């Protein structure tokens, strides 16, 4: 690291924030952001993880609003906080692109499609009309396995973006295995987020401490 800056002075952080804002601000209007996340909300079936593929395509590849490795960091934030994952992801991404207002707009865009559809069902239909509808259930029998594929694809793209080295390549395997065993505390994702953050911190802190004591 060229700048061993811990915390930094008030003015330094102000400057950094300003720089980042100017880097992130210009592209895209609020309307573009909203319609982007409305689309994402409309086609997200099966929870927050399923939206990753669509976000990668829309936000990272098409609009270039965010780098892929930055997106991974945002996913870490979204997953480690409570609440609805899809909304957390939208909030974090919207904030990164357009600040506080952007986060509100992207969260609203993600929520609105399902809110309107469920409201429509609650007002005009009964649950049985949906549940026992042959056409809808057959469509969803096709969509569900495809959604799984939409989550497998970002495993590979994110593994590339994470720049895994021989030292770290085992981590995703162990984490995926232990979480999918579904064994209470051992399978709690928060545990691995804490361990990962702690591990990264120690790998940086211990060597720098040693260097200091040698001087």
């Amino acid at each position, binding site marked *: 690291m060229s700048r061993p800056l811990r915390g930094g002075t008030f003015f330094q952080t102000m400057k950094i*924030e300003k720089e980042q804002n100017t880097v992130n601000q210009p592209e895209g209007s609020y309307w573009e952001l909203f319609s982007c996340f409305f689309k994402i909300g409309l086609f997200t079936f099966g*929870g927050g993880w399923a939206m990753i593929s669509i976000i990668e395509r829309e936000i990272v590849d098409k609009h270039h609003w965010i780098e892929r490795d930055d997106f991974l960091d945002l996913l870490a*934030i979204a997953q480690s*906080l409570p609440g609805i994952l899809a909304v957390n992801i939208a909030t974090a991404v919207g904030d990164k692109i357009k600040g506080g207002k952007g986060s509100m707009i992207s969260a609203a865009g993600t929520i609105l499609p*399902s809110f309107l559809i469920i409201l429509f069902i609650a007002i005009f239909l009964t649950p049985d009309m949906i549940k026992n509808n042959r056409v809808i259930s057959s469509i969803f029998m096709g969509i569900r396995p495809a959604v799984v594929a939409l989550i497998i694809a970002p495993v590979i793209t994110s593994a590339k973006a994470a720049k895994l080295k021989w030292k770290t390549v085992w981590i995703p395997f162990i984490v*995926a295995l232990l979480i999918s065993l579904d064994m209470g505390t051992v399978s709690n994702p928060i545990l691995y987020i804490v361990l990962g*953050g702690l591990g*990264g911190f120690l790998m940086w802190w211990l060597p720098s401490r040693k260097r200091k004591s040698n001087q």
Partner: protein
Amino acid sequence: MTIYWKLIWAYIKIGIFGFGGGYAMLSLVEKSVVGPGWISETMFTDIVAISQMTPGPIGINSATYIGYVAPGSVNPELTGIGWGIMGSLLATLAVVIPSFILVLYSSHFIRRHSESGAIKAIFSGLRPVVVGLIASAAIMLMNAANFNPNGISWQLWTNIVICAIAFCLVYFKFPWRGKKINIHPIMVIVMAGIAGYLIYGL
């Protein structure tokens, strides 16, 4: 009116204590809405089924639906579209706002310190973990409910083929009029839905 306050409070709690998103939250939702008798157990199962058949996060779907139904089922005077929509709106906002504030606050904090070595180090440790988290989500969704809901083996194989084709379409680039193009994930979902209708619906 008290039902609205109770509704807001219940969904704020779900928003704060619901870790892991989606189905991990369901038992918490069930306890907080079936327990006080706002909706019946069967209705809750119906809502889960509808959530699986509509887009969007299950947390939002349940908040919207239960917010609509609960006022009328507790107090018959509050039946009607207006009262229902008010409940929907309040419950949905209540489940979203706590985590919205938390995410906003933490990402601002992190951005303010994004040049610090400690934050950089923490995120470099987190990235491999996030890859593992996505992989675990994929593994856990490879279950009977998604691939073989009726327990029929030709359907299982068909669904595996749908999954494999969908993966190839999203992941690989295809030549199209001299250019290499990626097929949009939304397009893949639409095609899978059509395939599902043609295979299982006719």
